[in-house]
C-alpha cells in the first residue's frame, strides 16, 4: 500500500517551527511520507507544492495569530483548484472561537497546543483511509 503523503507547512512569517517539526517527525515515524516546506510559505506556494507532490494531507502551522487569514486562504485555493479531496489540518495557538469559523471555511480539523501526536496520526489514518 502506498504510504499516506503529508505536506507540513509554516504559513506566513511565523518562525515557531517546533510543533511543525515534531509533528512531521511523528507522522514520518508512523510510516507516512512527510514533506516539510520550511518557513515563510504563502498560501499559493503551499497549494502549489501540495499539487505537485500529490499529497493526501496538508498540515498548516501558525503560532503568530495569523491563522484566520492563512488557513482560510489555503482552503479557498484548494477549492478553487478542485483539490478538496486533500485533508486540510491546522495547528498552533488557535482560540476556540476561531476553530468553528475555520472549519466552516473548509479546514477539516484543528489541533491545538497539548494535542498528543498519536491523536493526529489516528485522525489522519481514519480520514485518508477511505480514499
Amino acid at each position: 500500500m502506498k504510504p499516506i503523503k503529508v505536506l507540513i507547512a509554516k504559513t506566513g512569517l511565523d518562525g515557531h517551527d517546533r510543533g511543525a517539526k515534531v509533528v512531521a517527525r511523528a507522522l514520518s515515524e508512523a510510516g507516512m511520507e512527510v514533506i516539510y516546506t520550511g518557513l515563510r510559505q504563502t498560501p499559493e506556494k503551499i497549494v502549489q507544492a501540495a499539487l505537485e507532490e500529490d499529497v493526501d494531507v496538508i498540515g498548516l502551522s501558525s503560532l503568530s495569530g495569523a491563522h484566520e487569514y492563512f488557513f482560510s486562504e489555503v482552503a479557498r485555493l484548494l477549492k478553487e483548484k478542485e483539490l478538496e479531496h486533500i485533508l486540510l489540518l491546522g495547528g498552533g495557538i488557535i482560540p476556540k472561537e476561531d476553530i468553528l469559523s475555520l472549519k466552516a471555511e473548509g479546514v477539516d480539523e484543528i489541533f491545538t497546543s497539548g494535542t498528543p501526536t498519536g491523536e493526529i496520526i489516528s485522525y489522519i489514518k481514519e480520514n485518508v483511509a477511505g480514499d
Partner: protein
Amino acid sequence: MDKKVWLQNIASLPERKKEFKTLSGLSVDAVYTKEDIQGDLGMPGDYPYTRGVYPTMYRGRLWTMRQYAGFGSAKESNKRYKYLLEKGQTGLSVAFDLPTQIGYDSDHYLAKGEVGRVGVAIDSLQDMEVLFADIPLDKVSTSMTINATAPVLLAMYLALAEKRGIPFAKLSGTIQNDILKEYVARGTYIFPPQESMRLITDVFAYCHEHVPNWNTISISGYHIREAGSSAVQELAFTIANGIAYVEAAIEAGMKVDDFAPRLSFFFNSQMDFLEEIAKFRAARRIWAEIMKERFGAKDPKSMMLRFHTQTAGSALSAQQPENNVVRVTLQALAAVLGGTQSLHTNALDEALGLPTERTAEIALRTQQIIAYESGVVDTVDPLAGSYYLESLTDQVETEVKRYLDRIEVMGGAVKAIETGYMQKEIQNSAYRYQVEVENKERLVVGINAFADQREEDIEILRLDPLVERLQEKCLRELKESRDTVLVEKTLKELKEKARSTENLMPYILEAVKAYATLGEISDVLRNVFGEYAAKELI
C-alpha cells in the same frame, strides 16, 4: 557517613522511579553531600561571578520588571505600556510584529495577515513617535526584541530622542540584535550570516562611541529553549553564539573591553526549578572564564554575564490555564534565585492567545509578590552551598563545555549553524520530550495527568482587524508628505556605503530621519547583501 555507603544502604528501599533525571536528562542522585562540592565559590560581585555579578544584588536594587508587550498599532501599544508603567512595571519591552522584524512594510504582500499580530507594526519614525508618546526616554529603559532590522529600529529610537532633545548618553535599553539564534530557532533572519554579523558589529562600534549605556545585543538562549533544547544546550549554544560575536567584533578591529561590557544575555526559565538556578549560575562562571582567559578581557565588566529572563512559554498549557500562574511563579522564582537582572513573567493565557490587561497584570503582580513578600531577595545567592545545587551547577558547566569543545572543532557557531548541527540537536531534544510526555514518563498537569474535559472559557484579546488597513493608509499619507528627494538621497548613500566596509549606523540614522520606511531601508540592504536561504532538515 560516606555517600557511597549511604547509597548502598538505601539501595534496597523502593523508589517511585527506576531513574531520576532533570528536565534536561541529567541524572539525579538520592542525596548529595559535601563530597559533591568542590573548590571556593568566591563572593558575589567577584570573578567568576557564580554568586552574582553585583556584590549586593537585590539588596541594592531589585531586578527590572520588564513585561514584553506590543500588538496592533503604535497607539494601542503605547496605551498598554502606559498601563504597565502605571501598575509598577520598571522597564519597557517592545514586541514588534513579524513584518517589522523581517523588514517588510505593512503594505508588502508578504506582510498580509501578519500586521500587528505578534507585536506592534512599525513602518517609519512616525510610528515610533506614536509608540513612545508621553514616555520619558531618558528615564525608562527600553528593550526591543528586534534582530535582522535591529539597526533600523535602534536608529528610529535615536532619531526620536534627538527630536526630543535627549542626549544619546542618557538613553538606556537593549536591542536583541542576535541573528545567530534566528537561524537556529526563531526564524526572523533576512541577510546571510556574514553580512548580518557586519551589521551587528557596526552597532557595537557605533554605540561604543555614541550610546554608551545601550546594551548592544542580547545573546539569547530563550528561543533555543522554546524550540525544544535542553538547559545544557540552551546555555552551550548561546555561549557559542556569544563567542562568535566577540570574535567578529575583534576581527572588525574593536578592542574587547570596548564592547564586551555592553553585551547582555537572555535566558529561559523552565520548570525544573533547581536545574534552572544551576544553569544561571553556571552561565556566569563559564562566560567570565571565557572572557578573561580566552579573550584576555581586563575590565571586570567584560566578564560579567548580565541577563534577562523570560518564563517558558512552551511550559504553559492551554488546558486548565489558571495553573499557569503557579508554573510562572516557580519559573520566576528560579530566575530570581539565579540572579537575573530583569524578568518577564508570562501571562496565564499565552497558550491561547495574547494576554488581556487582566492577565498581564497578574503576571506583573507575580514578580512583585516575589520581590516584596517572599523574602528571597534579602540575602545574596541564598542557595549557595547547597550540596545538590553546587553539584548541579558544576555538572551543567561540564556538559556545556563539552558542547563548546565540539562546536569549536566544527569551526565555531556559524559553521555549527550552517551545517544544521544546532538545529538538529534541538529538534532531537524536542522530539524526545514529546515522546516522554506521550509515554507518560513525564507528567504535565492538565495535559497527560489530572486532565479533565472541562471547556475553558477564557477571554482572549482580539486584535482590531483594521490595523492592516490603517497602517497602509498611514504609509500612503507618509509617502505623500515626506521630502522624497531627501529620502532617495539618503537611501542611495546607504546603498553605496553598504558596498563599502564603513559603519552603516550613521547612514541608517539619516535615512530614518528623512522618514524612509523600514521596508525601503531593508530593501536597500537586501539588494546589496542578498538573503539567507535556510536549509530545512527534519
